[in-house]
């Protein structure tokens, strides 16, 4: 077996890359939420001066990308690879936003798990000696996602209480083989799990088994107990998915309840902001990680965090054909020390 592998799905990085900078830009609703002060920039209108939602999302990606470089005092020449993806068909938000970057580009699709998927790949590229610096970035936009997956914005319909609200925002990180942390020490790459949920308005319920599977696999592969972490945080399970995931992990003898949270519940005030079951979208775990979690790790509030972004791998076509929703979750261990 390859000497960096632990168990079935985990890689222990021998030369853990540092996360040298992160940046995030969010929409007005996200900015008005409980984590508003952690975001680098809050745009005040959803179009941000562009003509279409898609152009606006690409602009958010581009500006976030530039900020990540800027904060690390890096130039595009320093970056060996960009690993990026988003929700729009053929990933046009990230590729159009980054088409001027002149950096080797890997386009990935992991639905809302993209943030931790890109960090899985980026960390392994660096540890493998294939790159010095890798930039991981993703985005989502409520309006472009509604247009592609659901109904026109101005349609007077009601959202069911299980539905989630797609985050407007882009977040990303620059990983490097130089730097003084926080480090990515382990990555657990998820497998596709499908427990047969067909309701596209209940993605939390569909994704919860995938998140639980990855978290349990991570514990078994690494031998870590939940107490190893200060925070175990899923991407966008929402209230229903979080409850189910927590129960699934707890019943296997790993009690995570006192340190478990979900980015989809942290970014909005569920009561005040009318988002039903919580937030969703690639941007959800990306901006909560790049804004809140990264900054709190730097402050020392958290020493070790397990980030588990979660993705529902459905498409409008598969939903219309009444297919169930395959889901995935990828885990990344972020630690401010190397021991």
């Amino acid at each position, binding site marked *: 077996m390859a000497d960096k592998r632990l168990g079935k799905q985990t890689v222990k990085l021998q030369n853990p890359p540092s996360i040298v900078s992160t940046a995030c830009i969010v929409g007005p609703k996200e900015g008005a939420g409980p984590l508003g002060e952690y975001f680098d920039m809050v745009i005040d209108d959803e179009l941000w001066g562009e003509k279409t939602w898609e152009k606006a999302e690409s602009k958010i990606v581009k500006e976030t990308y530039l900020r990540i470089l800027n904060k690390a005092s890096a130039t595009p020449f320093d970056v060996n690879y960009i690993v990026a993806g988003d929700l729009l068909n053929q990933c046009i938000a990230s590729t159009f936003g980054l088409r001027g970057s002149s950096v080797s580009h890997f386009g990935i699709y992991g639905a809302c798990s993209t943030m931790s998927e890109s960090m899985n790949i980026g960390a392994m590229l660096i540890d493998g000696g294939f790159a010095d610096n890798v930039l991981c970035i993703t985005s989502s936009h409520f309006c472009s996602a509604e247009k592609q997956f659901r*109904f026109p*914005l101005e*349609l*007077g319909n009601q959202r069911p*209480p299980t539905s989630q609200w797609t985050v407007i925002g882009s977040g990303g990180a620059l990983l490097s083989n130089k730097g003084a942390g926080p480090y990515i020490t382990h990555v657990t790459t998820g497998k596709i799990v499908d427990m047969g949920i067909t309701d596209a308005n*209940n993605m939390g319920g569909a994704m919860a*088994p995938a998140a639980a599977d990855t978290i349990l696999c991570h514990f078994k592969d690494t031998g870590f107990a939940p107490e190893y972490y200060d925070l175990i945080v899923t991407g966008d399970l929402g209230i229903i998915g979080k409850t*189910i995931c927590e129960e*699934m992990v707890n019943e296997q003898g790993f009690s995570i309840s006192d340190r478990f949270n979900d980015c989809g519940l942290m970014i909005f005030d569920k009561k005040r902001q009318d988002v039903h079951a919580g937030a969703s979208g690639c941007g959800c775990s990306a901006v909560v990680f790049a804004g809140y979690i990264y900054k709190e790790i730097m402050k020392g509030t958290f020493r070790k965090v397990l980030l588990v972004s979660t993705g529902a791998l459905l498409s409008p076509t598969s939903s219309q054909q009444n297919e169930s929703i395959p889901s995935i979750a990828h885990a990344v261990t972020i630690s401010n020390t190397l021991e």
Partner: protein
Amino acid sequence: MAKKMLKDLKPAEYRNYVESKSPKSKLLTNVFRAFLIGGLICVVGQFITNALKSRGYDSDTVGALTSVIMIFIGALLTGLNIYDEIGKYGGAGSAVPITGFANSIVSPALEFKSEGYIMGVGAKMFVVAGPVLVYGISASIVAGILYYLLK
């Protein structure tokens, strides 16, 4: 027998479990709001009808004119970013009347304007209302044939 572990549930069992964890729509509240908003829209329609009648139009013209005016109001409120808020509150109460029909055509037209007037507005305008038209017209044809045969 011990309670089954969640990870061992069959898809149908898991679906039931997720259902049991999911909040339900507030049926009574929604029905009441639909009644309120739907009723209000009808009151506006009746007001227009009465106003037209008092100006001496015959009943056919009054019916047609009222529909035209209500459709115009629905379309205008959609364009002004108001009808979706009414719909969020009123649900079926604002979806069923003719103003809701106007909303279901104008909202995709606005949304897909960015794809141009042919492949955007033209092709996507009936993406929501299309099924209503197809099956509404089909049903009226069936009803017409039955009426002819049974007359």
